């Protein structure tokens, strides 16, 4: 199992810009930076295939149109000795104008049908194998992950078993962010007052970096986290080790996480109850600690 090289300096109460030379997320070890072309799970693979299909369909439109266009410009360019016949009164042709509507519509249908199919497919969280549930809370400039079934919590990294769907339940106790692990699949918003589901799955072991995709303030660019996909056995052992040896996240510890600032990657053997909302549907939530957010000190916000 790769150890994470993801280490951010401990800056708890004073938000500041990234210190130069801070660590790189571990998942960036590979030489190929094109993470979207290297899906590591079925969700990302499905999304990539749709993207490629749409890209091909658009190329099928763009290439002929631009060729036609280049031809027209070259042929009808006004030059001395211009010999192409002119058609000064040619201004309509019902057939061509209708084709102008029909052809793009057909190409779009090629894109539309798989889009509809995949959108509905992705909205269904798979039930077998039973997904692992991870409760994600985005905070000001760190991520808190709670495993309700296992009773443990982590900050800024998650271990998940490979080949098993993971249901991330997303919320925020901060301005909006999005939870995004490019190699595993697309993103979903984290918003205070709502819980949104996002399921992802890794079909291989490895470490994949994630980042927030929605600007959330001063140290937004620091919101990297790692997702480590490991064998089921290794995952069980990791959970057990965490429960046995790591400190618990106390309420005071949770409250200090709410303060604006960065945090190192950590794991906890337990977490306080009711830090994540209990009811999940629609706009009505009970529980969660949304109103205990304390604003950062004014001095912090004017640091440059």
């Amino acid at each position: 199992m790769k150890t994470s090289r993801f280490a951010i300096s401990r800056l708890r109460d004073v938000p500041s810009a990234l210190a130069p030379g801070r660590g790189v997320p571990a998942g960036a070890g590979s030489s190929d930076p094109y993470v979207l072309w290297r899906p590591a799970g079925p969700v990302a693979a499905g999304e990539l295939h749709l993207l490629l299909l749409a890209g091909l369909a658009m190329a099928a439109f763009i290439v002929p149109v631009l060729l036609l266009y280049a031809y027209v410009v070259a042929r009808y360019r006004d030059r001395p000795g211009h010999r192409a016949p002119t058609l000064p009164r040619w201004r309509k042709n019902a057939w061509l104008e209708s084709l102008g509507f029909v052809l793009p519509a057909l190409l779009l249908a090629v894109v539309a049908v798989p889009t509809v199919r995949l959108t509905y497919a992705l909205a269904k969280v798979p039930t077998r194998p039973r997904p692992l549930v991870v409760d994600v809370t985005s905070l000001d400039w760190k991520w808190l992950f709670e495993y309700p079934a296992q009773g443990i919590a982590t900050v800024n990294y998650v271990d998940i078993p490979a080949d098993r769907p993971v249901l991330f339940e997303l919320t925020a106790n901060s301005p909006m962010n999005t939870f995004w692990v490019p190699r595993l699949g697309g993103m979903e918003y984290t918003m205070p007052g709502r819980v949104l589901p996002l399921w992802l799955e890794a079909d291989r072991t490895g470490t994949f970096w994630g980042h927030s995709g929605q600007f959330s303030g001063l140290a937004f660019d620091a919101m990297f986290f790692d997702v480590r996909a490991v064998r089921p056995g290794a995952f069980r052992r990791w959970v057990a080790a965490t429960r046995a040896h790591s400190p618990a996240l106390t309420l005071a510890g949770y409250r200090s996480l709410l303060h604006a600032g960065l945090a190192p990657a950590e794991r906890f053997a337990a977490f306080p109850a009711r830090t994540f909302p209990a009811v999940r549907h629609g706009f009505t939530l009970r529980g969660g600690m949304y109103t205990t957010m304390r604003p950062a000190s004014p001095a912090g916000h004017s640091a440059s």
Partner: protein
Amino acid sequence: MPGFAVFILHTLFPPDVLRPTEVGADVLIALSGGGIAYLLTTRRLWGRLWHGWITTVDHKRIGVMYLIAALVMLFRAGVDALMLRTDLALPGAHVIGAAQYNAVFTTHGTIMVFFMSMPFIFALMNAVVPLMIGARDVAFPRLNAMSLWLFVAGAMLLNVSFVVGGSPNAGWTAYAPLTELAFNPGPGQNFYFLALLIAGIGTTMTGVNFAVTILRMRAPGMTLLKMPMFVWSALATATLILFAFPPLTVALAMSLFDRLFGSSFFTMGHGGMAMMYVNLFWLFGHPEVYILVLPAFGVFSEVVATFSGKAVFGYRTMVLSIVAIMLLAYGTWVHHFFTMGAGPSVNVFFGLSTMLIAIPTGVKIFNWIFTMWGGHIRMTVAMLYQLAFIPTFVVGGATGVLLAAVPADYQLHNSYFLVAHFHNVLIGGTLFGLLSGLYYWWPKMFGRRLDERQGRVAFWLFFVGFWVTFAPQYLLGFMGMTRRMASYPLGLGWHPLNVVSTVGAFVMGAGFLALVYNIAHSLLHGEVDTTGDPWNGRTLEWALASPAPAYNFARIPVVRARDAFWHMKRDGRTLAALRREDLRDLPMARNSPVPFLMGTAFFVLGFGMVFAWWPIAALGGAGIAACLAASTAEPDDEAVLDSHTVAVIEAAAGRLEA
């Protein structure tokens, strides 16, 4: 120093505002402002400034003032862009820190959308729409001036945030709860809300004004289906403005009230729902981008027809497409937040509606190409922008379709792929369209031509610079780089393409300098347009002298066909040979100081509200009330220009039959 004076100074000049770049800018602003004031005083031009420009209600002069504002704002927001790109080419070097970076990308986006593109569009609309339809002015000349001065008040308010109080820093979209007081203390963000609220009132007035003008003031015989394409675009734009700006007003007001008055619309507690802001904002935001692009489409239709020597191909389907785009624009807004948990059915609906709107756009592309087919394409600078627009916009639109494929958007949302896409369509569409229109109508506005060779230099710098800047950003999107990041770690492989992109940005900056040189050269030494028809144009504005006289048409022509002026020339019967007995006394709207005073009062109101200094805000409010009372009381807002004076003006332009 007394305590409250210290407090005021600290509020006006927080540390945010005292960085070297800001102080440097302050010095520049003070010097250039002082320089201009000095010039005006020594050459005794204050009187002419007041009577000829500040109190004018002439749409042509208002257009020129919008244009000046747009170019100044293009400079400001362009410098912002260069700062951003420099910072991104040197990550970790802290060229500008994160706090300043966030403020700079916010002002870059806000200014480019609201304070550069929109005034530039209004400049062109004001300059030519009344001329194209054979009208003497817009429907409500004084309201037109009010729109301008409200826009100026909003622009000044946003720009002054750089100097006092601190700039907004939550992006041009200003999502809640990031804009909530708890997460965004200080007055800076208030500037954003108030500047846009004030400018939005002006924009709405412009929408009403041009809709009424186009619907009711066309020359006799000019039915809707005989109007030039640019006028159709202007009508669609005006309609979109009427429908798009009210939701924005509500979204901004609710956010502002959350900050100023402690309400709970979008707050994290007390049941606030930030997603409501997102919906309201984008309900405005998507029609807004069509407001920005439809006028460019209109310009391109005019330019391609004139410089191919042919009428626009498929006029009726072009009109149909504009109307379709206008209607569909209002039904696609959720595509800005597919990943916000709306559910598959809602997402699919909006994904399909977004793809649907690509169809009328595709129709227009085909029709422009077929317009050129069989014509004689003259490669003027205006036409070069049209020629560059087609491939650029086609690619940009195609990437939009990729983003409309909902699950693909799940990966690409808010990445640099998105940034590349919207710059692609906004620069390739809107900016190229506006620059094309600038070169095309410059002679009509100023009576001189812009030098073609200098224009080509600027064009190539912009065109090449654009692709070098943004093509790498598509690739950065595939690398997983998210927008609005002030810095990034070096191990992700993002650095090289960021450097390339930055080089491109500086090439575009050079293009802007070339444009400025071109403009200055034209105003000082440019070739005079003696005929009023330098391009062998097809529409009515070219029937007048350049620049057009204050009253536009001494006599309004009867229109019998589309491309009215083309047919007039073909029949040998133009407006260049009026007889003395044809001339009449002309009623003209009088100048008025009220619009300018109203703008000032709004600025004072906005400034007071930003800092929650209620006495100042009340003063501004009282000023607004006084201006409203004054404007309803002005009984003599019209004066008559007698036919003799008209004859003198027409004769001086060589248009009176001897």
